């Protein structure tokens, strides 16, 4: 299967990763939170240029923009924005995070130290108004990311959930950069879905000039009970994960 598709981004693109050595001693329940998960298409060739050789692309190329609005829990209120490229580790859907922002220094450090997200401090806001869901990131006075969804429809019954692809991030390992998986549980209380619209997108500020969405897929908003779990897996960047396997991390409970 030598013609299988893999990413071809190397360390010059992906960097050496964030040192994420802090231990998370058990699950963290954040209580009620908002989740805004919007997906867009972009060219497969550009996705391949942003993924390492250990993962397969998703076809079509997909970029995911995720906002959290968290009001409870040990970090106090905070908001987060993540920008990731959809990929397949082994053959399961994941999003490789290329940019991350958080609204408080505590949240920035928490995302970096435990999960390796390349988080920066910014004014991150996720708001639900009478007619739309709006997520914004303002960094140093510049509106670098803004996504909104109007005319949302409620998704009811047994299908009232959002299938969130787990994020993975490049972290600094002892032998070089690795991928680490972020895991969380979302207990959905309400889900809305509509057609998202990007009203601000600064590729340079999002760390990847070539990452430019071209077509919309969906924008979904959930009211959730949000629980974050300790990281369990790290994976290499250069060999296919389905053959090289994953490295299990010690989980402190």
């Amino acid at each position, binding site marked *: 299967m030598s*013609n299988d598709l893999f990413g071809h981004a190397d360390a010059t693109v992906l960097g050496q990763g964030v040192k994420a050595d802090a231990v998370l001693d058990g699950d963290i329940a954040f209580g009620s939170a908002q989740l805004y998960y919007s997906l867009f298409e972009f060219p497969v060739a550009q996705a391949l240029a942003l993924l390492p050789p250990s993962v*397969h692309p998703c076809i079509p190329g997909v970029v995911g923009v995720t906002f959290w609005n968290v009001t409870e829990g040990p970090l106090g209120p905070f908001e987060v924005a993540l920008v990731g490229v959809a990929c397949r580790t082994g053959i399961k859907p994941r999003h490789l995070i290329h940019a991350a922002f958080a609204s408080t220094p505590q949240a920035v450090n928490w995302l970096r130290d435990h999960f390796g997200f390349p988080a920066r401090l910014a004014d991150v806001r996720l708001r639900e108004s009478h007619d739309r869901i709006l997520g914004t990131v303002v960094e140093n006075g510049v509106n670098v990311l803004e996504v909104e969804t109007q005319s949302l429809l409620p*998704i009811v019954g047994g299908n009232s959930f959002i299938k969130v692809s787990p994020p993975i991030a490049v972290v600094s390992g002892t032998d070089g950069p690795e991928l680490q998986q972020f895991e969380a549980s979302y207990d959905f209380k309400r889900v809305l879905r509509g057609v998202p619209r990007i009203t601000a997108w600064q590729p340079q500020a999002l760390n990847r000039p070539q990452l430019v969405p071209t077509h919309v897929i969906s924008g979904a908003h959930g009211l959730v009970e949000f629980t974050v779990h300790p990281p369990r897996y790290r994976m290499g960047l250069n060999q296919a994960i389905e053959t090289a396997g994953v490295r299990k991390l010690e989980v402190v409970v």
Partner: protein
Amino acid sequence: MQFGMFHELSTPRPFSPQRQRSVYENAIEQSVVGEQSGFDFTWCVEHHFLEEYSHSSCPDQFLMAVARATEKMRLGFGIATSVPAMHSAVRWAEKAAFLDVMSGGRVEFGTGRSSTWNELGGFGAVVDDTKKAWDEYVRAIPKMWTNERVSISGQVVNMPERMVLPKPWQQPHPPMWVAVTAPGTEIDAAARGLGALILSHTDINRALPRLKAYRERIKTCEPVGAFVNNKIAVVNWLYCHPDGDYARARGEELLASFSYTAAQTVEISEGYPSGNYSNLGLLGSLRADPDAPSDKKKFANGLCFGSPEEITETLIGWQDAGVDQVVFLMQSREHLPQADVLESIRLFGREVVPRLAAHRAKVKGETV
């Protein structure tokens, strides 16, 4: 029990017109050899934009080629995608009837609605309406076949009075089926009197409740066509070889190849929350999780990779479960040499088909 073959027309990279044609020609040859070896059905999928996984965008054209190369082989749309952005209901009625006439009455009309963003998003289809559209299609198409002239006033299918031509060869019309992937669709099939083409490569015990539910519900169905097609076909895999271990090793490779190509698609339920798609479709459901030890070397007990004796035992299990037809995938990205696929088909015909016939006769107390 009858046997079918299921052609995805999976095509390996690097793509070229020559390689594409080779995939098509090999699949036709498999159908020809299959007919000589006791296979009754050739099913051909319809997929769009699914790189490597399936380059079968025009199943009616493939089936026409098989029709001209065979004499008795039934020709199954597996499936005709009943989504307005892709095809109108009239066009499906025309194409199926045309093939039915040209083949002397061999069409089996499978229907479905697609489950990937690749396809539905690529055509700009209204994802939330696919089930509603499919429901109108399966009710409208048999009317187009059986009524001299027809006018239809639906939300999706809406046409003034016209004579849809040609009319099918089979009377009153070809048997109709629906692809069953998500749990519950077997009930949708049964309620409408449609055959269930079950597209989940599961083990026998897990399939049993769905088979039983289908048989129970269809007793009180309101058929959308002129007759009830009370049939269950289960899609499976086949590689038959004298050495069972060798066959299973090749089978694992086929499954790995299939899973790889299926994995890259974007299932609707992954990216587009909808009341219309709660479960993963076939492609997503086949993904093994490399992180989960229990998923490693997952090999359902109903799969037909093995020696003729082993495959016979497996098929007896399916037969006892009440399945009318087992439909086999036999290739992925041309991973197996064509000669090996053909020999597998011939070996199946020589050694498995007679064994099953003998078993059936024994159960019925007949003499072969």
